[in-house]
């Protein structure tokens, strides 16, 4: 019930708008029916009350009749026993009055008509007999009157009395029965109202549940699907039973996902081709470049030997440009390999202090060139780490050489700290300089390729503009991260955090670069 009903609603091939209207109308109909039932029940209850009131009034009338009968019979008996004109007259009047009352008795029900007729007949006879007795008495035929009274009046009186009693009894039994019946039908009505009300509420709830479930189910599925799509998973397809707008929506969502998957695949392919192409081009470029650099160095040596000093500055320019071009090509190759996912880390165990000093020794000439002091805080206590040594060196070299490059007559400070983690330790490295610093805008472009060169081509600083991009990518690959704080004009601090246990590297997916 909890599953097939929503599915049934979902599968109904009408619009959501119609479904909602139907549900609303169904609930309105239930309300109307409930109101109608209430009215009927109220009406019945009122009817029964009126019936009871009628019965009570009937009983009162019957009792009056019974009372009248008794008092009439008593006065007749006493009048006939001590006959004088006044008493006889009064007895006859009473008989007439009784007759008059009897004719005017109301509420006689069908079942009592027979009985009532009997009473009328008996009373008529009583009237006849009493009239005869009175006449005989008045005529002085006392003895005959007495005879007649004994033989006729008394039995008739007895019957009359018995009949009126019976009438009252019957009416009383009637009212008791009627009260019982009334109570029973009240109970029935009560249960009817309660059960109808409860089932209406239940039906409305069920209807609401089915409608909302049939609407919300697909909406939630689609939400889930959209979340997957936005996180790059285009393989998910949703099936909803709905044959309404939501069904159409789900179908469109699936189509969109399929379309996106195709597009994404194309983009990935294009990106992969690009990376492969770059890798090949870089490789092919390096071979002739190798010769250019090598031969220019060779020529410089030979020019020195032969005393051809004039050639040396130009040869130096060829060599420097060649090396710059080589650095660019190497960086592009690195990046394209990272993008193509072709870079594999090869972790090894190495001593951190030794590695740091190796890097520092290559950076020292650069620091000297700009009159910077290099402060290195690193000691044996750092111990060893398990990581791709070449990449860690490359990262550290990039940061230190950048710091030396952008600082003049200042200081570059390297701090290293081992941080104890829950499962493994971290190596925290910070490189702080007192150089030119960066503006907010420059910092926002920091990890974008060639952003250093982007500044109106003013090529004051050496470098490819790819160093930090590669550094950040390598950090991420190793499961670490890099952060920077800087103040324009007074220096920058790069903070690097690398896991010392290289097994945790590579768990982070490398985001594609937008070169």
């Amino acid at each position: 019930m909890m599953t097939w009903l929503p599915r049934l609603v979902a599968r109904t091939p009408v619009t959501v708008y119609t479904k909602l209207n139907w549900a609303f109308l169904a609930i309105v109909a239930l309300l109307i029916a409930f109101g109608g039932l209430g009215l009927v029940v109220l009406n019945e209850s009122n009817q029964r009350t009126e019936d009871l009131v009628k019965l009570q009034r009937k009983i009162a009338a019957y009792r009056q009749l019974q009372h009248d009968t008794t008092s009439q019979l008593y006065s007749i008996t006493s009048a006939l026993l001590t006959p004088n004109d006044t008493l006889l007259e009064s007895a006859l009047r009473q008989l007439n009055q009784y007759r008059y009352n009897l004719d005017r008795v109301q509420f006689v029900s069908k079942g009592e008509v027979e009985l009532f007729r009997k009473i009328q007949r008996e009373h008529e006879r009583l009237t006849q007999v009493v009239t005869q007795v009175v006449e005989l008495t008045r005529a002085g035929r006392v003895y005959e009157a007495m005879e007649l009274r004994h033989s006729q009046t008394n039995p008739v009186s007895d019957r009359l009395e018995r009949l009126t009693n019976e009438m009252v009894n019957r009416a009383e039994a009637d009212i008791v029965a009627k009260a019982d019946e009334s109570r029973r039908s009240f109970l029935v009505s009560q249960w009817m109202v309660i059960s109808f009300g409860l089932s209406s509420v239940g039906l409305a709830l069920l209807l609401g549940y089915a409608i909302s479930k049939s609407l919300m189910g697909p909406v939630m599925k689609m939400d889930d699907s959209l979340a997957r799509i936005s996180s790059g998973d285009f393989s998910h397809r949703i099936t909803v039973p709905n044959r309404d707008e939501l069904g159409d929506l789900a179908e469109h969502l699936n189509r969109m996902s399929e379309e996106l998957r195709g597009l994404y695949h194309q983009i990935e392919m294009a990106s992969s081709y690009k990376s492969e192409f770059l890798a090949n081009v870089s490789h092919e470029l390096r071979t002739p470049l190798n010769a250019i650099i090598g031969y220019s160095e060779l020529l410089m040596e030979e020019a020195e030997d032969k005393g051809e000093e004039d050639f040396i500055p130009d040869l130096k320019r060829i060599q420097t440009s060649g090396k710059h071009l080589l650095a660019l090509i190497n960086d592009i190759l690195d990046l394209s390999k990272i993008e193509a996912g072709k870079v594999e880390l090869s972790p090894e165990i190495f001593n951190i202090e030794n590695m740091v000093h190796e890097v520092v020794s290559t950076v020292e000439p650069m620091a000297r060139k700009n009159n910077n002091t290099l402060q290195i805080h690193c000691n044996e206590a750092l111990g060893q780490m398990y990581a791709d040594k070449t990449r860690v060196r490359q990262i550290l070299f990039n940061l230190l050489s950048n710091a030396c490059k952008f600082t003049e007559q200042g200081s570059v400070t390297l701090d290293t700290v081992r941080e104890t983690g829950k499962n493994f330790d971290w190596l925290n490295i910070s490189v702080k300089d007192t150089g030119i610093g960066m503006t907010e805008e420059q910092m926002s472009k920091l990890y974008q390729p060639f952003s250093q060169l982007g500044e109106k081509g003013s090529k004051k600083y050496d470098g490819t503009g790819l160093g930090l991009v590669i550094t950040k990518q390598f950090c991420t690959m190793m499961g670490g991260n890099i952060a920077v704080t800087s103040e324009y004009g007074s220096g920058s601090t790069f903070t690097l955090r690398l896991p010392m246990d290289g097994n945790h590297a590579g768990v982070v997916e490398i985001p594609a670069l937008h070169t």
Partner: protein
Amino acid sequence: MKKILIIEDDDMSRDMLSRRLERRGYSLVLGVDGKQGVALAHSELPDLILMDMSLPILNGWEATQQIKAMPETKSIPIIALTSHAMAGDRKKALAAGCDEYSTKPIDFEILLGKIEQFI
């Protein structure tokens, strides 16, 4: 005079490297493929071998293995010349028996330092 065998298929690289080493006072023997390199190592018995890894006929790793397998030549130090940033190549070179490696394009001063470590 110390003798160095250069096994390198690229003419310019070989020429450049040999001329620069000659200027530093080494005598040079040149080979252009792996097979010739192995033969020269055996016949010339050089003091050191510079071995390119991507050679025709017999590649650098196989040539290295053969040289290191022969008793006459097994003690000759071999410096592998590997492509830039190919971590796999470096590992393979060392696994094949090379004593040292230098990445291409060659930084001549660093290579000289490495050569001097051995001879």
